[in-house]
């Protein structure tokens, strides 16, 4: 009798898939952090209308939004080595970098940071712009420098506003990292593919890996609710 599923194979594939979870989480969290830096920089460039950079930023955001993530991953994967090689041979820069020894995880991290940074920048910009003008004025009036004003007053308030959006984008990124196997990263998806072809049981491993993604995303969602609650504690008025 033909079974719909090889349940044993499915269950046995979990440990191997889960063992690659740090790769998936690492790329997602790493690119979240890097993209926050990119996103804040891009947002500030737009808010302060910095000449030249502002145009570059607009083109960057428009390009990222207008091209598929998959294509962007390939561009980074094939482009960065070429650029490094070019800089080495033309200018003698980056001599210590060995293009052949760069791990595919690095390219994945770069591609996702660049991608997410563009999307975050709009969220961050509107969050910063949502901070009451009076907060800026009070900070200036006591003599804070723009950097102090941003770090102590504006960013904390903007971040609180942005958390739900940032969270949704982070969850999307976790799921999108399933694309990284195409450049040779063995994340949970890559591992599932390997197991699947070994046992010729693709349906089973994809069920297993989808369950892992699902649980991961539920856990992150729960965590986000807690983080948001904590960040918003100062907004609670007189009960």
């Amino acid at each position: 009798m033909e079974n719909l599923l090889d349940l044993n194979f499915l269950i046995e594939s979990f440990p191997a898939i889960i063992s690659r979870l740090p790769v998936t989480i690492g790329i997602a969290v790493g690119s979240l952090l890097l993209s926050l830096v990119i996103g804040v920089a891009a947002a500030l460039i737009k808010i302060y209308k910095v000449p030249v950079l502002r145009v570059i930023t607009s083109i960057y955001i428009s390009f990222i939004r207008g091209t598929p993530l998959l294509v962007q991953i390939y561009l980074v994967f094939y482009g960065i080595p070429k650029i490094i090689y070019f800089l080495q041979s033309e200018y003698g820069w980056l001599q210590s970098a060995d293009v052949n020894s760069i791990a595919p995880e690095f390219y994945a991290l770069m591609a996702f940071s660049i991608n997410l940074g563009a999307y975050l920048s709009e969220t961050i910009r509107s969050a910063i712009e949502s901070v009451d003008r009076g907060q800026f004025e009070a900070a200036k009036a006591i003599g804070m420098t723009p950097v102090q004003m941003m770090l102590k007053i504006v960013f904390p308030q903007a971040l609180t506003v942005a958390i739900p959006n940032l969270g949704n984008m982070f969850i999307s990124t976790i799921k999108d990292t399933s694309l990284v196997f195409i450049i040779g990263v063995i994340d949970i998806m890559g591992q599932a593919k390997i197991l699947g072809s070994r046992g010729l049981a693709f349906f089973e491993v994809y069920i297993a890996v989808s369950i892992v993604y699902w649980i991961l995303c539920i856990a992150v969602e729960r965590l986000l609710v807690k983080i948001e609650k904590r960040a918003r504690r100062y907004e609670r008025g007189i009960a």
Partner: protein
Amino acid sequence: MIKLEKLHKYYDRQHVLKGIDLTVEKGEVVAVLGPSGSGKSTLLRCINFLEEPTSGIVEIGGKRVDAATAKKKEIFALRTATGMVFQQYNLFKNLTVLQNVSVGLTSVKRMKKDAADKKGIEMLEQVGLSSKLSHYPAQLSGGQQQRVGIARALALDPEVLLFDEPTSSLDPELVDEVLATIRRVADTGKTMFIVTHELSFAREISDRVIFMEDGVIIEQGTAEQIFTKPAVERTRQFLGKAVQG
């Protein structure tokens, strides 16, 4: 001492301050009166460069800043020499009451956290709020928030305090506690500029009253002079029943 010389402010082509000249002695309390749109807030905000004057000179405690050549450093110096109390309080929402008062001490005056907290608590005692140190602004009444605003401004020991309608956003029953706090600060000999619509309070607290209209000071004098025998008809109209009252 504060000195304003030929202060002009344009918003695009709108001429909002038309050459303000003013000298205020140390310890003087100046009430700024005038109809809506006459430029009172703009004048106050030009003193600490929250609005950059189009031209003119602001001098506080011997430091002269010419709007035409003002450098960032000079503007920071003016801002540390002044404290501002806002109509909407503008307390830092993400900081506790104590942090609101101490953040300027640690970040602007580079004080150690312990010393800043100590001074912050002292300031909050002066405005009667030392029991609310770890509350957030959203947990305070408007009157309490404004008193924290006053403590925040006082903490940096400014040469002059600038009040822009400090009681205009308050429910009527909360006005008195804030006025009482301002009165106590005035009694310590602080130099103060107060833009207010509370005429009787202005009369009681100020050494000098300035009456503005359409970007110019059209009359000034002691509270007694302005409120009993204003020289300019427009001032008399504006003060209305408060004259002689």
